[in-house]
């Protein structure tokens, strides 16, 4: 009542965004380069942070060119870090808006939005006797979180990267090898070629007896799943896939109105508002020309094209579109 229509928290956020009870966010305190295109970002999470389990990932919302974008990154810090900071390790992918921003441009002091950590790519309570980590590229990040978190007796790791200098955490991995805490096999794909999954018999002869965690590009994981299933030991394999769906922007497509459970075909020129209304979906509407914002609706999946500018908007959490001036650019899911 004292601050209506705002909440007291709107004022408190001005001075203490990391306080308990605030929307969860964190402050970037440092960015350490790991390789030419990867960096570790040190974040001090707000008081509401509930902690994580090694191997889990966190969704973080970063403002890039003024636009809030959300991405998921594995936590690479151990769970018992004394100073309460957590780290994520980010590899800049070509044209990746968020990854390039975090690796090359973000300044310490920046506030980022956080979700609570999640994911079941974690070690079980009862620690397995023999462990195998199969990783490639930035797929090493959740595994690094595990390696740093708990010491295991018998750990083998096969890691693929183009060149030695592309291996993230290489020095630390070699230290673990020197301390005999890890047996490491590096596959340098620029010189050795892509890893042939059949070579595992020679690289890690007892792979089938080991509890395995695999993380990397879809090709590697598909091959691993086939291999483990082929040998009847698929229950020993745990995989984590990054970026599950890649949106292909086309011209028109199947539109799903998920709240009303309707799916209809749409061309690339008809506004989604009309498509929905024709399908009998109750659509909020207004000026029907893109000026009043009375028709904004969440885009849950897929991509749409702005009929005025031709610009493509891809689904991401929190993305709302103006249905009166947007058409399907490939299959999409509208929350109506």
């Amino acid at each position, binding site marked *: 009542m004292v601050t209506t229509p705002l909440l007291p928290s*709107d*004022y408190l956020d*001005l001075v203490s965004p990391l306080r308990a009870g605030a929307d969860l966010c964190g402050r970037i305190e440092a960015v350490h380069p790991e390789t030419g295109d990867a960096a570790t970002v040190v974040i001090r999470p707000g008081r509401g942070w509930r902690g994580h389990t090694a191997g889990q990932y966190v969704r973080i919302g970063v403002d890039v060119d003024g636009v809030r974008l959300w991405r998921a990154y594995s936590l690479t810090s151990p769970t018992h870090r004394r100073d309460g900071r957590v780290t994520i390790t980010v590899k800049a992918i070509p044209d990746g808006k968020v990854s390039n921003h975090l690796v090359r441009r973000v300044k310490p002091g920046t506030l980022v939005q956080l979700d609570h950590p999640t994911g079941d790519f974690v070690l079980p309570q009862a620690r397995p006797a023999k462990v195998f980590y199969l990783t490639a590229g930035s797929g090493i990040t959740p595994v690094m979180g595990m390696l740093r978190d708990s010491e295991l007796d018998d750990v083998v790791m096969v890691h693929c990267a183009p060149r030695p200098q592309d291996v993230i955490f290489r020095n630390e991995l070699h230290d673990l090898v020197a301390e005999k805490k890890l047996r490491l096999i590096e596959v340098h794909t620029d010189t050795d070629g892509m890893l042939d999954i059949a070579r595992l018999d020679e690289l890690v002869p007892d792979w089938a007896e080991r509890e395995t965690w695999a993380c990397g590009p879809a090709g590697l994981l598909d091959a691993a799943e086939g291999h483990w299933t082929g040998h009847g030991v698929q229950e020993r394999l745990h995989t984590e896939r990054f970026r599950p769906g890649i949106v292909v922007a086309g011209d028109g497509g199947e539109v799903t109105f998920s709240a009303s459970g309707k799916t209809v075909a749409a061309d690339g020129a008809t506004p989604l508002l009309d498509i929905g209304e024709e399908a009998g979906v109750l659509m909020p509407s207004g000026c029907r020309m893109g*000026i009043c914002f009375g028709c*904004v609706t969440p885009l849950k999946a897929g991509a749409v094209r702005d009929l005025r*500018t031709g610009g493509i908007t891809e689904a991401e959490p929190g993305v*709302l579109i103006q249905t009166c001036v947007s058409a399907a650019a490939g299959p999409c899911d509208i929350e109506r």
Partner: protein
Amino acid sequence: MTAIDPTAHLTSEQIEELGRELDAIRDEVIAGRGEKDAAYIRKVIAAQRKLELVSRGVLLFSIFPPAWLLGTAGLSVAKIMDNMEIGHNILHGQWDWMRDPKIHSTTWEWDHVSPSEQWKHSHNELHHTYTNVIGKDNDLGYGIMRVDEDQKWHPFHLGQPLWNFLNACFFEYGIAAYDLELGKNLHKRRRKTPEFRARAKAVGRKIRKQVLKDYVIHPLLSGPSFLPTLAATFTANLVRNLWTHSVIMCGHFPEGVQVFERRSIEGETRGQWYLRQMMGSANISGSKAMHFMTGNLSHQIEHHLFPDLPSNRYAEVAVKVRALFEKYELEYVTGPLPKQVFSAWHKVFRLALPNKETKAGAPDHGKELVAA
């Protein structure tokens, strides 16, 4: 309505070309939106909140006259900022592109008795789509005034200078009633529809909260300064209302602004829609501070062309828009605030009286202004 159509010299090809040129201006701004713009609105919001906090803090001691003056002035400015540069523009979706759920047209609520949701419908949708179309755009005179010679005169209009003055003083309540379409809904039958009742309830809730905050809780918190704080919040609301009413009057009422017939917008093209916005709006000239305090509605013409572009960009857009006015030989109605306010009030007084007899043989009013 003027007797001469100021757009008669344009061919329909020219009007469509004008539309394309305006689209290009819009696209350029959209492509260039970025970090600086986001930082701007966040800075303005933070500044507004700090100013309001400090002012209300000072008012706790408003029993001392200097504190009263300072706190009242600060609170007035904070309320103006909230309604104009922040609220009006966020509710237009100008900042939706940032994808920040806290600064978004679907979540924002403002320091105003009209709930955001209702205001967005009557303002963004009705007023901005049907700008200055008599019978469609009720912003023309808010249903209580006659603002054009072509509107039928009624003895009720004799009092319109007084209605307008009262509306200015209690502008936020006027807007809330207007958003509710109270006039139309006072008939018993309409009053009972569940839809109207729900909306009226929402307004009632909002008014209760606002009144409780401004006229009960904060004065009570001030203890011995109860009465001075009460007077201060009342004054701040009055100042804000008078100010916003003046700014908004300048947007469409000054002499030189065109109004349109319902028939004229049938089958309107994009170019014609743009042209109607250009001829139906007026600007206020002045300093940067002036533009800021009007929420950049001093760039009303640009705002009506591009209601969803971030307000901080209107000044740069205005230069290009004005060049188009010149290129197409159209009148860009603008002037300093006192002149525009006077012009608008002059019209209110003039149209309170019935029109003077039109001379026999005088040309009929230019009715199809745009859709010619």
